[in-house]
């Protein structure tokens, strides 16, 4: 694969800021456009930030962290954090697309995922030997849901990359971000 060497690929921290900027950009998209993000081939996807948002600025001993909690993640606190130059390092998201809905915590620096729950799917701990078919169905359903959720997050990340890596598009996006933030904090 071009563009990187083995060691860099192994390092989770290399350009990890991209994951933090992705969550921050997603928050801007979600808040400024009523939560709707258009995903090519998937259609409209609704993204809401819920329960908590972790923000950070700086690194090492200078790392400054702000945790905003609440049903709507205390929007004013998040905006104050953004105004102070902080970016979102971890967030609990609710994402809906087509007939599927899931909630998930995404960690910006690693893109790890925790607490992934699918609406209407309670999950089972099926250990009944006589229900081999049910066991297989449970595994395949969960595997399908997980891969779909991963695909949606990946597509959102792709959208972000398309803007972030194109100079003019990114300048326009940053300008839009500043204007939105200025309007929403007045």
């Amino acid at each position: 694969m071009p563009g990187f060497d083995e060691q860099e690929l192994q390092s989770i921290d290399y350009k990890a800021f991209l994951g933090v900027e992705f969550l921050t950009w997603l928050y801007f998209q979600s808040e400024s456009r009523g939560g709707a993000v258009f995903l090519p081939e998937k259609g409209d996807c609704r993204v809401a930030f819920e329960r908590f948002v972790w923000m950070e600025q700086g690194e090492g001993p200078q790392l400054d962290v702000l945790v905003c909690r609440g049903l709507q993640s205390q929007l004013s606190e998040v905006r104050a954090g953004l105004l102070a130059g902080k970016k979102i390092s971890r967030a609990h998201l609710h994402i809906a697309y087509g007939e599927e809905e899931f909630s998930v915590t995404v960690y910006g620096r690693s893109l790890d995922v925790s607490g992934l729950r699918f609406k209407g799917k309670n999950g089972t701990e099926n250990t009944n030997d006589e229900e081999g078919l049910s066991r297989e169905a449970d595994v395949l359903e969960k595997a399908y849901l997980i891969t779909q959720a991963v695909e949606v997050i990946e597509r959102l990340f792709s959208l972000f990359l398309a803007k972030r890596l194109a100079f003019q598009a990114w300048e326009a996006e940053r300008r839009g971000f500043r204007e939105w933030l200025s309007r929403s904090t007045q």
Partner: protein
Amino acid sequence: MGLLSTAVTFTRYKLLAPIPDDFWNWAHEKVVERSFQDREGLDEYVAGWTPFDRPFQSNIHLTDMSFAGFLVLGMRVDVRRVPSTVLKKYCALEEERLKQEKGLNRLSKKMLTEIRNNMRLQLLSRAIPVPSLTDFMWDIESGDVFLFARQDRLRMVFEDLFKATFDMLLTPVAPYSLAVSLLKADALKLKALEEVASDAWI
């Protein structure tokens, strides 16, 4: 914690190596070689594969791990630990005993090290192994591998066991590696990715 939990937590990896044509027979053979085996001994940890829904069973049939295009297995890690305060206490008792036995005021550094090493092994042999269980899922077509855990210790054990079993290197999916795989052969974008730096938005 695992694939069928209501709330799923995972670390995602990507496999870059190609897989053999006769994948399932090959994979089953490799997995059986590394299935979990209870071992007497002084290993601090023992790790191996199990059926994902029967973590205390070592026999793994192909049907236990093959689910259409997904390979799903449990990873069992039995850990023996000697808490440092316990080790300290028994070392102190042994040091006192030896001083009295040999009529010494203090013991040499070499003797202290020897006591510590012996005591650690003695205590380790008496410690009950504590099993830690997690699942993993391998999407054969896409090369995505999901370990249903985030703890560093489990990740390291998993990466080692996976490498030892399949002789394949797992690459953790992180912002940069994901960006590289999404940009594929777009040379301009890959160049931009190399040059991009964190900057202020305000």
